[in-house]
């Protein structure tokens, strides 16, 4: 252990501002990058799921329409 007390550690030999600024900004940026990477992966999955659902609905609607047309033709 290089420091005698906790206050001594926070003080960083007089360079507290620069050292903690560097560590804060660096890990802040890395944290934000990690979060945004995870969020964008789940967002892509959600978008694809939505698109699949929409396409299925359109397909079903087209089928119903076709069936309805056939019924009217027969009568």
């Amino acid at each position, binding site marked *: 252990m*290089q420091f005698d007390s906790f206050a001594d550690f926070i003080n960083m*030999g*007089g360079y507290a501002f*620069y050292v903690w600024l560097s560590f804060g900004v660096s890990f802040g940026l890395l944290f934000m990058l990690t979060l945004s*990477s995870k969020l964008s992966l789940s967002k892509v*999955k959600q978008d*694809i*799921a939505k698109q699949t659902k929409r396409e299925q609905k359109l397909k079903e609607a087209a089928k119903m329409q076709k069936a309805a047309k056939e019924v009217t033709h027969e009568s």
Partner: protein
Amino acid sequence: MWKWLHPFANPEYTYHFTGKIKPWFSWASVILLIVGMVWALLFAPADYQQGDSYRIFFLHVPAAILSLSLYTAMATIAFCGMVWQYRMADASSAAIAPVGAVLTAIALFTGAAWGKPMWGTWWVWDARLTSELILLFLYLGVIALHNAFEDKQLAGKAAGILSLVGVINIPIIKYSVEWWNTLHQGSTVTKLGAPEMSMDMYLPFVVCLFGFVCLATSLICTRFQTELLARNKMRPWVRKLVEEETK
């Protein structure tokens, strides 16, 4: 002999392979970064000239090393993609660029915060600092080009050309401290042969460096998976996978 590489040309196989290796890198990065940072902040001895301000080194140097090596990797991939028409090259280039940009920003910022107490200024327009700033702009250009076109293949081609042109900057950054008189000190740890550092500073640095490498790898894995899904969203395997996961 190279047959084992063939399945990696298949996006589905590569997606699952990436998912398998990702947690290993994530956990390794958490452990290595905690150990490395505690070691660097609490147990490494203070520098005899710079006192405790030199502890910024444990962030600055790993970020700077990675900013260069990630760019080199990105450009190599772009080259391979262009020559052999490797389909997933664009996806990996798009995955690497944001991670490289953030690490470059960290290297620049910590450099400024270290320069202020040691050199008396946040910024000087000298060779090393300016060329590293250009690296940041190159990364931002690659990211912007990837997002600039509706057609992802066209976007990948444009971004690939920019990253290949930008490679010229890499040796300039690396050797700027030798070619020009700069305020920035010469390399201490990336020299061939023995590092010019005492072991009780060098060992925590190595731990931090590997922590950064693992973190960057796991982030690139996540972003690569995102890119693969987005680029293959019409394919049945993606539909099936998403359906199973969002149930």
